[in-house]
């Protein structure tokens, strides 16, 4: 890590955060927030957290920004003028914030130095993972092996969280009836009569490559940064790109709503199902080593590696479907008629 870079990126991050909160236009806020996420991504690469950076790039800077823009597009850009009479609540918020900051600063005084390789956190659990990952699982990317195996149970529920979020958005927004009694007029009129050839052509050319890259990220997660989650998000993003450059209906033709829900379901089911299979084969839940009994020509260690690949695929499928589903629901206000 390079400390000069660390300092300057952190400073820029704070500036971006201030700007996002202060700016009076929600669309600008969303864009600045995207820049903020990209800076985060740089920061994490700089600190050596490549997997986190990759996730942040695809999720924070990519999907979150798209979701923000979709939401702003469906509501309004304007931030209302400040009214008087909210002074009390602002004061309360300020006091709470300052108090929190103060408490955290007091705690900070006891922290070990930043970037010290001999902190308790670096000496207690993590040496085991670093030393043992090749020996236990034959996966050189320690983050993948910890994510999918040592703490695989967390990751299963992480997938479940995404699935829950997708369902929650459907539950909140989806309107099954054609008309909605308290619906508002469309906020912006977009030019649907103006299909842009250049954009469509380039998008069409790019999509297969994006999807290929997504598959590579999933499959190569054992050896390089990436894995099911990032791959799934990238795959989902390719559909979002299509939906933006062409129209909404066309993508719905490829990925209908039922398929989306079903795929999200299947993804989580693959994960939980592999765990359950281990249980049926006589080991504890998610103990992939017993999979060597059913997989041909694998020993216990390779079985762990293959098990991880299996669950990564499950994660990718679930994430891909849910990302698309959330985007569709937000951009069409839950009516699935037209979108950005």
């Amino acid at each position, binding site marked *: 890590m390079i400390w000069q870079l660390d300092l300057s990126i952190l400073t820029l991050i704070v500036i971006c955060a201030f700007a996002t909160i202060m700016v009076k236009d929600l669309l600008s806020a969303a864009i600045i927030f995207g820049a903020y996420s990209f800076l985060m991504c740089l920061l994490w690469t700089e600190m050596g957290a490549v997997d986190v950076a990759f996730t942040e790039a695809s999720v924070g800077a990519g999907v979150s920004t798209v979701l923000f823009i979709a939401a702003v597009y469906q509501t309004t850009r304007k931030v209302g003028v400040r009214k008087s009479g909210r002074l009390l609540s602002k004061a309360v918020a300020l006091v709470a914030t300052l108090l929190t900051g103060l408490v955290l600063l007091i705690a900070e005084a006891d922290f070990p130095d930043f970037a010290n390789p001999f902190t308790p956190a670096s000496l207690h659990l993590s040496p085991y993972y670093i030393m043992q990952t090749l020996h236990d699982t034959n996966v050189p990317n320690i983050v993948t092996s910890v994510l999918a195996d040592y703490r695989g149970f967390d990751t299963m529920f992480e997938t479940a969280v995404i699935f829950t979020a997708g369902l929650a958005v459907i539950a909140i927004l989806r309107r099954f009836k054609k008309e909605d009694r308290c619906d508002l007029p469309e906020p912006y009129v977009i030019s649907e009569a103006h299909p*842009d050839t250049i*954009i469509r052509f*380039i*998008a069409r050319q*790019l999509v297969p490559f994006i999807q290929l890259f997504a598959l590579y990220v999933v499959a190569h997660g054992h050896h390089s940064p990436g894995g099911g989650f990032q791959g799934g998000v990238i795959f989902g993003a390719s559909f979002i790109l299509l939906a933006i450059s062409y129209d909404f209906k066309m993508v719905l033709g490829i990925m209908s709503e039922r398929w989306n829900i079903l795929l999200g379901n299947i993804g989580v089911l693959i994960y939980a199902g592999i765990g359950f299979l281990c249980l049926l084969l006589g080991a504890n839940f998610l103990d992939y080593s017993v999979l060597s009994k059913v997989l041909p020509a694998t020993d216990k260690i390779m079985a762990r590696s293959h098990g991880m690949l299996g669950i990564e695929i499950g994660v990718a499928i679930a994430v891909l479907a849910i990302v698309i589903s959330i985007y569709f629901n937000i951009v069409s206000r839950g009516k699935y008629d037209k979108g950005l």
Partner: protein
Amino acid sequence: MDIVVIMLTVIGLFSFFATTVGLLRFPDFYSRMHAAGKGDTLASLLMLLALALYNFHEVNLANLLVAIKILSIVVFIFMASPTATHAITDAAFESGVKPWTKEPEEES
């Protein structure tokens, strides 16, 4: 080899600088987009080429793979970045942003 790498990096940095200056100094939206779209693409292209070459200090299969990956990034940036610029410009034109002309605009 090193000299080529340094040359490419320096030119790349210069065009990044030019882009930034253009963004700040140009008078209206379209000319700013012009600076951003062209300069940015060129600059990142040069920088990435420099990286790909720098990687070739030792020629072997692994380094070759890395170089190919970097080159494919170059290709995709070359395709995507001008398209994005085009899309933004197009959207601005649609929503009625007027181009800047030499005549001073009427005071409104």
